[in-house]
C-alpha cells in the first residue's frame, strides 16, 4: 500500500472540537472563485425584490450557519414565477441573506476536504466518490468509502490526483487555500461534475480562531469603531449603552461585574476583558478605550494571578495623571501583589474596595 494512504484508521478531525469561525456558504464560494475553483453562477440577495430576471431554474439557499438547511426548507429550487414568493417565505424564517444560484445538471457528486487530524497533528485530505452526503455518517457506516491522505512530506499530489481521478491542481489549490486562510476545515460537498467541469456546489470553511486577528472576514463588520480598536489591541471589548466603564480580567468575572452594577441600578457602558497576564500597558490601553465613550465613572475588577495587581494599579495612576481623568474610579483587586497595589492606590486617593459587590454599589453611588 502506498505510504500516506489510510483506509480505516480512526481519526479526530480538529474542526469537530473547533471554536473556529465558520464562514457562510457564499463567503466560502467567494474564496473558491478568487482562487480559481469553479462555482455555479450566483448572486446574493438581502430582500426578495432583488430577484429580477432569472436565466432559468435556480436554487435559493439561505445563508445561515446551522446545518439541516434542506429539512428546514432553507434550500429550495425556484423558477422565475415563484422565486420571489419562496424567497419571501425564507426571509420570514430569520434569514438575512439568500444565495440565488443557477441549478446545475449534476452527473457525478464527490466529497473533497482538508482538515487537521488532531491525533496525528497533520493536515489530512479526504475524498469520497459519494458526495452530497453527511461525511460523519458515511465515515461511521461505510468508512472504506472515504479515502484519506496525510499531507506530509510523503504526500504526492500527482499520485493522489491520479488515484482519485481528480485534477492535481485542485488538490494543490485546496491545500494552498487551507494554508493561506489559516483554516481548520475546507470542504467541498458536493464537488460535482458538470460537462466535464468540476464545480463546487457547496462550501464549508472553518477558520482557525487563533488566526482571526490576521484574517479579515465579515465578523468585523458588526464591530463598532471602538470594538475594532480593541480587537487590534488584543482586548475583548463590547460597547454597551450605559455610563459606567467596566474593566476586568476574564470574561466570566467581567460579566459578573456588569451584572452586579446593573443590579445596583447602574448602567454599564462597556464590557472590557483585559485577558490573562495583563500589564501596565494593557491597562493604559484599556482605559483609553473605555474613556472614548466619556463614562461618568469606571469600575475596575481584577483577579490577580499572572496579572500583577501593582502593574494594574500603576497603569491606572499613570494614565489618570497623564490624561487628567477626573471621573470617579473604583477598583477592586485581589491576588498577586495586592498589598503593593493597595498602597499605590491609597497614595493616589483611588477608591480601593475588597468585594465586587461593594465596588459595584460604590461606583453606582458615585455616578449618581
Amino acid at each position, binding site marked *: 500500500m502506498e505510504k500516506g494512504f489510510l483506509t480505516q484508521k480512526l481519526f479526530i478531525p480538529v*474542526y*469537530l*472540537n*473547533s*471554536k*473556529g469561525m*465558520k464562514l457562510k456558504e457564499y463567503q466560502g464560494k467567494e474564496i473558491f472563485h478568487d482562487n480559481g475553483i469553479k462555482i455555479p453562477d450566483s448572486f446574493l440577495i438581502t430582500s426578495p425584490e432583488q430577484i429580477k430576471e432569472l436565466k432559468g431554474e435556480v436554487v435559493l439557499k439561505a445563508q*445561515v*450557519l*446551522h*446545518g439541516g438547511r434542506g429539512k428546514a426548507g432553507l434550500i429550495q429550487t425556484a423558477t422565475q414565477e415563484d422565486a420571489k414568493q419562496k424567497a419571501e417565505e425564507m426571509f420570514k*424564517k*430569520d434569514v438575512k441573506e439568500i444565495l440565488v444560484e443557477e441549478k446545475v445538471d449534476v452527473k457525478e457528486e464527490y466529497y473533497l476536504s482538508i482538515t487537521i487530524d488532531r491525533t496525528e497533528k497533520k493536515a489530512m485530505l479526504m475524498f469520497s466518490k459519494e458526495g452530497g452526503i453527511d461525511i460523519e455518517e458515511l465515515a461511521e457506516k461505510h468508512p472504506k468509502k472515504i479515502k484519506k491522505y496525510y499531507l506530509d512530506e510523503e504526500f504526492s499530489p500527482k499520485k493522489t490526483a491520479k488515484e482519485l481521478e481528480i485534477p492535481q491542481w485542485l488538490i494543490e489549490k485546496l491545500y494552498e487555500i487551507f494554508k493561506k486562510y489559516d483554516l481548520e476545515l475546507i470542504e467541498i460537498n458536493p464537488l460535482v461534475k458538470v460537462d466535464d467541469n468540476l464545480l463546487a456546489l457547496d462550501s464549508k470553511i*472553518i477558520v482557525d*480562531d487563533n488566526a*482571526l486577528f490576521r484574517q479579515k472576514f465579515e*465578523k468585523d463588520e*458588526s*464591530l463598532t469603531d471602538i*470594538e475594532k480598536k480593541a480587537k487590534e489591541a488584543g482586548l*475583548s471589548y*463590547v*460597547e*454597551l449603552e450605559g455610563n459606567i466603564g467596566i474593566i476586568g480580567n*476574564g*470574561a*466570566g468575572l*467581567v*460579566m*459578573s461585574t456588569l*451584572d*452586579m452594577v*446593573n*443590579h445596583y441600578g447602574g448602567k454599564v457602558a462597556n*464590557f472590557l*476583558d483585559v485577558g490573562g497576564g495583563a500589564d501596565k500597558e494593557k491597562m493604559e490601553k484599556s482605559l483609553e478605550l473605555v474613556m472614548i465613550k466619556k463614562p461618568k465613572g469606571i469600575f475596575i475588577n481584577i483577579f490577580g494571578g499572572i496579572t500583577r495587581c501593582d502593574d494594574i494599579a500603576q497603569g491606572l495612576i499613570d494614565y489618570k495623571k497623564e490624561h487628567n481623568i477626573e471621573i470617579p474610579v473604583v477598583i477592586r483587586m485581589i491576588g498577586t501583589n495586592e498589598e503593593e497595589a493597595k498602597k499605590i492606590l491609597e497614595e493616589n486617593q483611588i477608591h480601593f474596595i475588597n468585594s465586587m459587590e461593594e465596588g459595584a454599589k460604590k461606583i453606582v453611588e458615585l455616578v449618581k
Partner: protein
Amino acid sequence: MKKLSKILEEQFNNYADIEIQDIYKLLYQSNFGCEHAVDQNSRHWLHQEYDKTVPSNGRKIIDIISPKDNIYRLNIAPYKFKGGDKDKLFDWFYSSSKINIGTQYEFRLLWDEFKMINQKEKYFEDKKVLSFEKIIRYHLPIMHHSYNYRQANEPSYRIVNRLTIDTYMQNICF
C-alpha cells in the same frame, strides 16, 4: 430527544429572572456537561454546599437541559427532600465530569438555534443577544448565574450525565 425550544420554554416557566448569561450557562452545560476539574478532594466542599441547601419539594429533581437528552441538572433541594444520598450524588457528579462530550463547534450550532428560537419567542431583545454574542465570539468563558437569577431561584444543583444516573435514579426521581 427534547427540542431546545421545549427546554427553554420549561426553564422560563419554572425559573424567574432568567438573564441571557443564564441561558448561555444552560447551553454551555447542555453541550459540555459539567466540565469541572473535579477530583475526590472536591467531595468536601461540594458536601458543604449540599449541607447548606434546604430540602424542599418545590421543584423537580431533574431538569433535562440537553436536546440530546444526556445532560441533567439534578436539583439538590428536592433530591434531599426525597432522601437522596449525598455521597452517591458526588459519585455521579464525579463520574459525569469524566465523560467528555460536546465540542465548541456544536456549541456554536446550539447557540445559533437558540437565536432562532429567541427571534420567535422574544425572550431577550435582539440587541442584548448580539451584545452578549460579541462577548463569547472568540472564547467560551465559564460564567456564573446572573445575580438576579441567583436571588430569585437559589440554584443549587449538580450537572450529571444521564448515563451515570439512569440506573440509580429510577426509584427516586420518576
